[in-house]
């Protein structure tokens, strides 16, 4: 049983790591702010989610598991809302000509 759980953890965490890598590559390669923003938030939130999922298989205490999920949800919420805010600021700032 625990071997199966370990295998699941292994898979999920490895996949999470891959998405982090993808996010970084996107950040470096994409040409403009908005598409970088897109790549970044999608990829690293997914990466973190997979890592959290992987770790959930190892949790014994339900409260600790809840906390892990909370961390992920918080990051998700923050990422989503902040992306919108930054996009807003990036566009608004550019039209006012102060961002660069």
């Amino acid at each position: 049983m625990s071997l199966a759980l370990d295998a699941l953890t292994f898979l999920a965490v490895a996949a999470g790591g891959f998405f982090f890598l993808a996010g970084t590559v996107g950040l470096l390669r994409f040409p403009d702010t908005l598409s970088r923003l897109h790549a970044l938030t999608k990829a690293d939130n997914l990466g973190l989610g997979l890592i959290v999922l992987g770790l959930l298989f190892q949790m014994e205490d339900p409260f600790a598991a809840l906390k892990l999920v909370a961390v992920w949800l918080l990051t998700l919420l923050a990422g989503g809302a902040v992306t919108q805010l930054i996009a807003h600021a990036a566009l608004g700032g550019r039209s006012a000509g102060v961002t660069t």
Partner: protein
Amino acid sequence: MALDAVLAVLVVGVAVWTVAARDTFAAVVGFVAFGLLVALIWVRLAAPDVALTEAALGSGLTGGLLLGASTRLGRTEAEATGELPGGLLQFAAATVSVLVSAGLIALVLLLPEPAPTLAPKVAANIAATGLQNPVTAVLMAYRAIDTLLEVMVLLLALVGMWSLAPDHLWGGAPGRREPADPDGVLTFVAQVLLPVGILVAIHIFWVGSVAPGGEFQGATIFAAMWILATMAGLANTPPVMRRSLRLLLIAGPAVFFAIGLAGFAIAGAFLAYPADYAKLLILIIEIPLTLSIATTLALLVAGPPEQEPQR
């Protein structure tokens, strides 16, 4: 160990970037990243209490404060770059810094093995404090006087900051009144985050007696949530002359002093707790102390009064 090597290189790299960046804003962003990495180091050094403080205060609140300052200073920062010191001074500064670093490296390698430690003494006496978290025991019992004076330092910084207000603004509210966000995104973020943040703050504060956490970490999160509310335009900072604000500021240290002085009578020394009631008394101190520290920290970020007082 591979992790530590990456972490060490990263921390030094980000620090170099913070020093070398031409743009002040970029340097501040670098500093926020730096704080985050330092929090990781504290976890590696088996100091989770410090990691919590660094994440909340050293990186978070300080970062927010510096970001605000750098945007307000704006272009004047670039202007001051014209005043770069001469090559001779740069060379002298570099020499001094390298010497200090080299000296410290030598001293780190010279530190005695096995290291002297007070850990056994802390462990042997912790029962008398009723606490299980040794760091909290040091802060609230063995070295309570440091903590008490430190809270006074925070309050004094606030008095000093307020004293910078122009006379006609004295009594007004600190900082600028932020308008509500027209698009509602910010309002939404703040409204969702506030209850979560307060819950986390209470959790971090509450576990402090048995696990890493405590009043400073909890208070910092409270303060951050307060500032978030003001930034989103959900609330204004209270005017500095408001009596309830003043009472909130002094409540923590006042209770601390009261119980400390009562220690003369009930436990034979200033800031001593009778063994049976130690845990309860410390809790009675910590609750108002957390609120006072949170208020002080939030107001320290808000700055001196900048709004016209209402007469």
